C-alpha cells in the first residue's frame, strides 16, 4: 500500500497534473462546469473545435439519446478564428488546468491557418487537430479516413507550431492503425483515439431522420468496446502517447484504456451523466494504484497489451 501515487502524465511537451482531459465540444471552455467540479482537479480542457470562418452549425435537433449513448450533430458551430481570438481566448487564461485548443477545417490550408494563429496565443497550451468530425460536409471526415490526407494535414500544421500537437482519429475506417502511423510519421506528438462513431436514428412516427443533419456521431458507454480496441491497435502501431476516449464514466473504464495503451484519457459524454465523474475517476485511480502498490500511473500503461511499446520507454526520462 503506497499513498504517494503519481498521476501526472506528459503528452508531448504538455505536462498534465492529472491524466484526465475533457473532450472537445463536450465541455465548453470549462467554465460551464465550474459550479459542479473543481477544475484544478482535472488534467485539462480540450476546447470546442474552431474553424477559419464562423459557422452556425447544423439545424436542430442536434442530439438524440440512444441505448447507453447519444448521437450528436452540432456541425462545428463556432464564431470563427477571428472572433474567437478577439473575444474568447483571453478568458481561458484563468482556467486552473491545461487548455488545449481544437482546430477543425475543410482544407489543409484552413487547418494550418487556424492552428498557427491559435498556437501563437499563450492561453493555449497545446493543439488538438480534429480531422475526424463526422458532422460536417464530406471533406471534413475525409482527412482522418484517408492516410495520405492525414499525412498532409499533419505535416503542414506541424510546421506552424512547436506546441504539443494531438491528432484526433476517426474510428470510421477499415484500418485505424495505418492512419495512426501516418499521423505519427507526419509529426504528431500524440493521438486522440477515438472521435465519435458514425450513426443515425430515425423517427418512426414522422418517417424521417431524428437529427437535423440526418447522420451524427455516436458517443458514450455504447462505443467503449470499439474505442478500447482502437486504442489497443493504435498502441501497437505507434510510439507516441495516446489519449484514449469513448464512453469513459468510471475509473474501471479509464483503466481499460490505460491498460490497452493510452497514456491519458478524455471524458466527454460522461460529463452529461454526472459532472463529478472526472474527479471521481482521479480519486478512484489513486486508490486503485495505491492498493496495488503502483507508484505511478505511467507504469500500468499498456499492461494488458502484449506487444505494446510503452511510449515513455523511448523518451529516456523514465525507467
Amino acid at each position, binding site marked *: 500500500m503506497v499513498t504517494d501515487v503519481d498521476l501526472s502524465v506528459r503528452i508531448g511537451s504538455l505536462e498534465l497534473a492529472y491524466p484526465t482531459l475533457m473532450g472537445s*465540444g*463536450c465541455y465548453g471552455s470549462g467554465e460551464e462546469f465550474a459550479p*459542479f467540479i473543481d477544475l484544478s482537479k482535472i488534467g485539462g480542457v480540450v476546447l470546442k473545435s474552431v474553424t477559419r470562418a464562423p459557422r452556425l452549425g447544423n439545424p*436542430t435537433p442536434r*442530439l438524440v439519446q440512444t441505448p447507453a449513448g*447519444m448521437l450528436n450533430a452540432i456541425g462545428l458551430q463556432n464564431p470563427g478564428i477571428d472572433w474567437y481570438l478577439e473575444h474568447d481566448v483571453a478568458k481561458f487564461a484563468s482556467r486552473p488546468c491545461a487548455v488545449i485548443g481544437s482546430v477543425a477545417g475543410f482544407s489543409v490550408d484552413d487547418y494550418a491557418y487556424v492552428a498557427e494563429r491559435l498556437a501563437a496565443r499563450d492561453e493555449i497550451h497545446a493543439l488538438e487537430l480534429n480531422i475526424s468530425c463526422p458532422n460536417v460536409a464530406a471533406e471534413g471526415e475525409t482527412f482522418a479516413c484517408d492516410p495520405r490526407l492525414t499525412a498532409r494535414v499533419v505535416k503542414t500544421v506541424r510546421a506552424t507550431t512547436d506546441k504539443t500537437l494531438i491528432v484526433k482519429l476517426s474510428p470510421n475506417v477499415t484500418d485505424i492503425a495505418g492512419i495512426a502511423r501516418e499521423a505519427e510519421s507526419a509529426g504528431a506528438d500524440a493521438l486522440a483515439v477515438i472521435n465519435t462513431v458514425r450513426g443515425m436514428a430515425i423517427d418512426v412516427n414522422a418517417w424521417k431522420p431524428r437529427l437535423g443533419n440526418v447522420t451524427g456521431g455516436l458517443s458514450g458507454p455504447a462505443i467503449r468496446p470499439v474505442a478500447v480496441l482502437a486504442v489497443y491497435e493504435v498502441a501497437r502501431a505507434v510510439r507516441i502517447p495516446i489519449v484514449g476516449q469513448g464512453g469513459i464514466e468510471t475509473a474501471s473504464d479509464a483503466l481499460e484504456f490505460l491498460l490497452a495503451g493510452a497514456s491519458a484519457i478524455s471524458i466527454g459524454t460522461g460529463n*452529461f*451523466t454526472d459532472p463529478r465523474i472526472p474527479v471521481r475517476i482521479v480519486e478512484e485511480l489513486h486508490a486503485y494504484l495505491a492498493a496495488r502498490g503502483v507508484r505511478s500511473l505511467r507504469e500500468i500503461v499498456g499492461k494488458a497489451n502484449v506487444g505494446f511499446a510503452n511510449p515513455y520507454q523511448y523518451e529516456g526520462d523514465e525507467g
Partner: protein
Amino acid sequence: MRALQSPASVHDVLVLDRTELAPGVVLLGFHAPQLAAVTQPGQFVMAVPPGGERAAVALGIYEAQGDRASVMFFVCGPRTREFAGLREGDRFSVSGPLGNGFTLDGAKNVAIVAGGVGIASVLLPAQALVRSHVRTRLFYGARTAELLVDRERFEREGCEVICATDDGSFGHRGFITQALAATEDKPDLILACGPSPMLRATAFVAGELGVAAQLSLEETFACGVGGCWGCVVPLDRNSAQAPGFPGQDEGGSEVVYARICKEGPVFWAHELRW
C-alpha cells in the same frame, strides 16, 4: 429575460415520496433544502439516472419549499422509466437549479399556458404570482382528462384553471390556445410551457392579442449547462439573451443561436426566430 440564475451545484438527494398522478406520470419528492432555497420559478435540474450509462435528464422543478423539492415526469423512455422505479428512501443526484426562469415583475394579470408535461414547470411561477396578489389563470391542455394531472393543486394555490382536452373528456374540446384566444379578460403577460406546436400557437395568439409572452422551450439536452451547443434556438440578434456571434440562417437572415439550457429555457416569444 432578466438573468434569474441561481448558484447551482450537484446534490445527492433522498427520495421522500413518490406518487403516480396518472398512468405513466410520476411525482417524485426529494430532500434538497439547499436547492429548494435558491430555485427560481421556471428553472430546471439535470437528474442523473441511478443506473449509470445514461445521460442526465432535464426536468423542471415542480415544487420547492422548505427541505423538499420535487420533479414530475412522463415516462416516455429508458431514463424516465428508471426514475419511475425509484421509491421512498432511494437516492439519486441532481445538478441545479439551472437556466433562466420566468420574469414576473410588474405583471397584474397573467395567463399561464401549460400543455402536457409542461405543467411541471409552471407551479412555481403560479405560486409566486398568487403570493404577489397577481390575478393568475392557468390554461391547461392535455390529450385526455386523465392527463390533466394535479389540476386541483393549482386551484388550491389560488389560480383560476381553464382546461381543454383533445378528446373533450374534460373542459373545452380542442387546443388550450383556442381557449386563450377566446378569453374576454385580456392578460398583460403570458407564460407558457409545453410541446413546441402549443408554444408556437401561444406565440401566435399572444401576437394577435398584443400581449408579451415568455415561452419555456424544450429540446433534447446533453450537458444542460451550456457546454455542448446541442440545444440551440435562433434568436433575434438584438435580444438581450443572445449569447455570442451572429450568423446567417438558411433564409439569409441574421440570427444568433442561443442555448436553451443556458440562455433559456425561457425566452420572449417575439425575440425567437424559429
